[in-house]
């Protein structure tokens, strides 16, 4: 627990940087094949493949390489842009996208560590966003105070929704997978309802849209009007640090992990498992709720029914890819942010549907999780067999829990 668990480090070492790079390469290759195979030029060149095979290959290469180059320009550095701001903008977009993803994923990760499979980040985010929006447009206060209230509101909203799951789970043994799935839908409908009532609906509008949040309730932009990146990113980074402290240094984190690993032993050691289950879900919800504030009070400025986008679901993948470890989650969400930002540019520049990003993303996660497969794909040969021991970084209990919890 203290330092990242030994097995986590061992895992990193055994799936060395090389394997990770190869995993990404392999995923891009598969994605590239898909892009090429559905590219019109490639398919038309393929009709005379046997006459001039090189044409097909060249077209395929153009299609794939063009798409990926655009992705890079959209996510990291735009070498085509005329201005410095234009060049740097992609990076800030990546960070902007990563912001809500980061906190939501941290929430999922904390729950994992407590042995809970939290599919409910979506709903928790919605509740957080509702609170943050309402505070954001009803109140008029001095800037830092107002924003602070907004953040607290989002935390409260998410915590309520998450805590409800924890409480029901602890008190009745109901399965958190069912509870979180159902509460996602309840939250969505609640939002839909409130956006059609004066509580959240923009006066005079017939659409389910909230009023704009007052400027004092917004996260300030970090690099001026030209960049969307806002102070919510710094708050998310701070949250990462807090979660790191929580999980690796605090007594509460110790309790959470104990309950997550072995509920019986935790109970015997005097840990109040009911309290810990509820608290873990409260924290998970609070973090996801913060993502709601990042969305509305960071980038969007108003609330709609689709505020959660697919952040809550992506958060599950990100948390798993980051092995439920705060630092891992940070990098995983940056990667996903980059994909999202890059995917948009790719779509605009080359017409490649953004769905391909989902394909490449998922393949990367799978490949990174299965180093032996990557090694054999690239003919690297097996490493000397390690003793097979389950890695602690993974939410092992969560797995069991997702399948049915404990007796």
């Amino acid at each position, binding site marked *: 627990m203290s330092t990242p668990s030994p097995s986590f480090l061992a895992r990193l070492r055994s799936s060395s940087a090389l394997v990770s790079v190869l995993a990404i390469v392999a995923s891009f290759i598969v994605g590239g094949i898909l892009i090429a195979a559905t590219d*019109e*030029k490639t398919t038309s060149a393929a009709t005379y493949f046997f006459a001039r095979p090189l044409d097909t290959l060249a077209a395929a290469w153009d299609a794939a390489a063009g798409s990926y180059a655009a992705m890079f320009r*959209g996510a990291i550095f735009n070498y085509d*842009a005329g201005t410095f701001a*234009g060049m740097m903008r992609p990076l800030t*977009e990546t960070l902007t*996208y990563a912001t809500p993803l980061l906190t939501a994923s941290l929430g999922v990760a904390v729950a994992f560590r407590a042995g809970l499979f939290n599919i409910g980040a979506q709903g928790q985010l919605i509740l957080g966003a509702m609170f943050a929006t309402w505070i954001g447009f009803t109140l008029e206060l001095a800037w830092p105070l107002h924003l602070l209230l907004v953040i607290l509101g989002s935390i409260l909203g998410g915590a309520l929704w998450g805590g409800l799951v924890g409480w029901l789970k602890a008190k009745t043994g109901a399965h958190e997978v069912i509870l979180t799935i159902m509460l996602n839908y309840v939250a969505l*409908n609640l939002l*839909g309802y409130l956006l*059609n009532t004066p509580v959240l609906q923009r006066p005079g509008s*017939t*659409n*389910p*849209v909230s009023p*704009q949040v007052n400027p004092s309730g917004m996260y300030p932009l970090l690099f001026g009007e030209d960049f*969307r990146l806002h102070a919510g990113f710094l708050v998310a980074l701070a949250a990462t640090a807090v979660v790191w402290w929580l999980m690796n240094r605090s007594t509460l984190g110790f309790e959470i992990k104990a309950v997550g690993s072995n509920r019986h032993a935790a109970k015997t050691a005097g840990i109040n498992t009911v309290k810990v289950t509820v608290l873990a879900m409260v924290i998970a919800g609070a973090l996801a709720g913060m993502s709601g504030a990042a*969305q509305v009070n960071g*980038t*969007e*400025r*108003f609330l*709609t*029914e*689709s*505020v959660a*986008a*697919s*952040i809550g679901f992506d958060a599950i993948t990100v948390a798993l890819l980051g092995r439920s470890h705060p630092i891992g989650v940070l990098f995983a969400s940056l990667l996903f942010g980059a994909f*999202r*930002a890059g*995917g*948009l*540019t790719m*779509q*605009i*520049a*080359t*017409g490649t*549907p*953004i*769905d391909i990003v989902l394909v490449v993303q998922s393949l990367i996660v799978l490949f990174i999780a299965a180093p032996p497969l990557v090694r054999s794909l690239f003919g690297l040969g097996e490493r000397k067999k390690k003793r097979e021991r389950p890695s602690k970084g993974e939410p092992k209990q969560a797995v069991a829990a997702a399948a049915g919890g404990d007796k």
Partner: protein
Amino acid sequence: APEESAGGGAEEVDYLACMVSDEGGFDDGSFNQASYEGLVQAEEELGVQTREAESGASTDMGPNLDQMVSAGCDTIVTAGFMFEDLPLNEAEANAETNFVVVDYGYEELPENMRTLNYKTGEAAYLAGYAAAAYSESGKVGTFGGAEIATVTDFMVGFEKGVQKFNEDKGADVAVEGMETFVGNFSDTVKAKQISENLLSSGVDVIMPVAGPLGQTTVDAVNESSSETDAVVWVDTDGHEYANGGDTAVLTSVMKNMGLTVFESIEMDVNGEFASEAYLGTLENGGVGIAPFYEFEGDLPKGTIDELDALKEQIIAGEIDPLG
């Protein structure tokens, strides 16, 4: 869809027309798709270049707009109310780029912006009247994808049209499903079931206002044991557009987004871009009902004339279809 391929054979002009969808995507069978067809038409007939971006999530809409601006688009089209103030902000910040906003309006428009809205209720009113006239069971129905104004406008107009028929003919045709919403625009099983529910309660004309889910209603009607069941399609001409629409679609409430988007681009290409809050009506042809095709013979005699008369009255302001 690579942009350079000028399929229509029109001479290429140095003009970049762009469009950003909302979450629905360009194949949503609804406003995104209809607007997109306007863009394609411009590409084919005007020889402009195009770029398009789907917003996979609401979070993508802002960045997509930004990217279009930096890509040097001459005109950017957005579809759907979800964009909210984003196009307005962009328009104010980028005077050289023109913006065409579908299904949303602002109080004051900058010089470089057009908004396109449609009084779909007017056309739906006619469709409601026609549906009531056509119905043998005395029950017609409707349902929506979600409870939003662009959806409910259709439904309300439809209901008013039915009521008008009842008044004029002393009939008692009922409208069911005014409060029935699928909850999304993607769950085909649910939409199908709602259609089945309506049919089994005796409804014989259904107007689904749910984008691609309307297809389920067409399928339900085509599968139903009763030959006379029919669909009122929305947005486009379902007779052409829907799979199996020729045997099921009584008529369609057309919202001519494609055409108006095309016209907006055409104006600009010709150097006549006008900042304007365009409102599609029966009068200007922005909305309308599609032909009845084979179903025309099944309408009570004189219905077509009555519809024409109603249309005139609406245009003349003698009837308020939403009032």
